[in-house]
């Protein structure tokens, strides 16, 4: 109960710019939901739950809630979007990826500054610029994926093993660079 009251006080004390940042975060999550609806048209209840989850995560960005919500959003994408290549790499996929990027960035940046402090213009410029750079790279990858999906590439177990090996190396590198130093 006291946690709920604290959360309520947190929202009441929000500065105007911080409120805008959280609304942007919520809107980005909603963009992902819209893209999912457009790409696959899931159950209405699922859409409703996703909307509520996104709003809750925007309300409490400094908790673990955004992680669970993003896992839930991705799981719904995997479940509802058909596996036909024409749909999996449609423009809605790019829109969903950009929505997920802004949602994550908004939640991450809102969680690291006091809620009652006004956000300086530099905060918007810096984070906006970075989102634009990563968004552009994502768009490039989406275009590349679209081109490659039309090509006839040899499959098999080898590419999968290489991908899993790369992932393992990345995890070990991250552990040694970050977790072991903390």
């Amino acid at each position, binding site marked *: 109960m006291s946690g709920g009251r604290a959360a309520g006080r947190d929202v009441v004390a929000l500065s105007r710019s911080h409120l805008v940042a959280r609304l942007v975060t919520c809107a980005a999550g909603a963009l992902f939901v819209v893209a999912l609806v457009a790409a696959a048209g899931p159950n209405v209840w699922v859409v409703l739950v996703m909307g509520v989850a996104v709003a809750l995560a925007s309300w409490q960005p400094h908790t673990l809630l955004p992680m669970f919500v993003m896992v839930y959003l991705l799981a719904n994408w*995997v479940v509802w979007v058909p596996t036909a290549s024409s749909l999996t790499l449609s423009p809605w996929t790019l829109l969903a990826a950009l929505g997920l990027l802004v949602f994550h*960035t908004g939640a*991450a940046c809102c969680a690291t500054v*006091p809620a*009652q402090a006004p956000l300086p213009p530099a905060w918007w410029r810096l984070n906006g610029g970075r989102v634009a750079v990563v968004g552009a790279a994502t768009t490039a990858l989406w275009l590349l*994926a679209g081109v490659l999906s039309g090509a006839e590439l040899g499959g098999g177990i080898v590419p999968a093993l290489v991908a899993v090996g790369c992932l393992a190396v990345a995890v070990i590198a991250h552990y040694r660079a970050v977790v072991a130093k903390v």
Partner: protein
Amino acid sequence: MDTSVSATSVSARSAARPPWKMTYAHARAFLLSGVGVLLAVLIRRPDLIVLVFPLILVTGWGVITRPSSLPTAALRQSHTMMREGETAYLRVDVTPVAGQDFSAASASTSMYVEAPRGANAVVIATPKPGVTLTSSVRLRATRWGRRRLGPVVFGGTSAWGAFRFGPTPIEALGITVVPQPAAFDSSAPAPSPRGLVGRHRSTRPGDGSEFAGIRAFQWGDRLKRIHWARSLRSGNLHVSTTHADQDTHVAVVLDAHYDLGRSEGLDSRPSSLDLSVRAAAAVSEHFLAHGDRVSLRVLSHRAPMTVPAGTGSRHGVRIMDTLAQVVPGPPLSSRLPPLQLRPGALVVMVSAMVSPDAATSAATLAGAGFSVVMIDTLHDQVQPADDEALALVAWRIRMIERDHEIGAVIRRGVPVVPWVGPGSLDGVLRQLGRHRR
């Protein structure tokens, strides 16, 4: 008197310095990247790669730009003294490190120290490492006394909110909050001025500005004082005389033995001691502004204090500083300590008159020939804290006794004035002045 311009600078540095820590956001990006890529490979979903690709970039960017050293922050205050109701600025000097995007500072509020909306926290952009940046947070003190501003918690964040420094506390800084004098303006003269300088009209003739009369010329009179019209009519030289302008010694006695009622700050309901302290501040400032000598005596068992007679704005600051240190404490005996006043002093006793001691002391001083005025600072809203019928009855009985004591002290020639702000003392001071002449 400007008490808020003290140029003293006090600073405190953050003591404990924890390292940069990974945030939930970075863990989230890392976890979703790994799971997304693994899932995409295993179930052959290239769209999952596109979805988590931004998170992969964000994770890598966050790790590469992770700060390796620790930022520093120091806290300063530009004033060591301010009036209640005014806003204090706490300046936070931040020296960021490479890889740090933003710093944030937030000041805690406490009893009688509040923050205007959004003013006690600040986010500082730190684009250049090693360059000290200054930002400030604001806090407002709502009651006189020794207050603490802070503590302030300070933190920093790296790119994409991936790593976080702090929040680490910086210890609070002390500040003296002097009372806001209640609105008070008296145009009446002090009753028996004795000093050499001042603005009050003396009972004796002398070099002053207020006309006293016309008399025959005597050797030593100034030529500019000759009243030519009267001199021509009478055929003898006459001069106009004036009353001397003199000052007086105003002894402010503050009865701080009890504090009744709950103080809710400057903007809300005051306690009896709040009213007493503000009234004493107003009376002191008023007479100091008129060039009088003012002394202060605080009657409290826990913190008895005395400020000898003096004049000028610096003396006013000293009196305000003393008033800010008032702590209520009931007396050990019913006899008040001797006040050691010189003849001719005007004694202004500020008291809630809860116990008969103050009234007794005032009557004794009046019997010794002093001009004494009592200011009653017990307001109607003061009631017993609990709603018990017995407490209410006891309170009513005490109030009846108090009325009798006030009547008795008035019959001894001590006027008792309820504190109502502007002009509270005018009538009384005029009566005392006429009586003395």
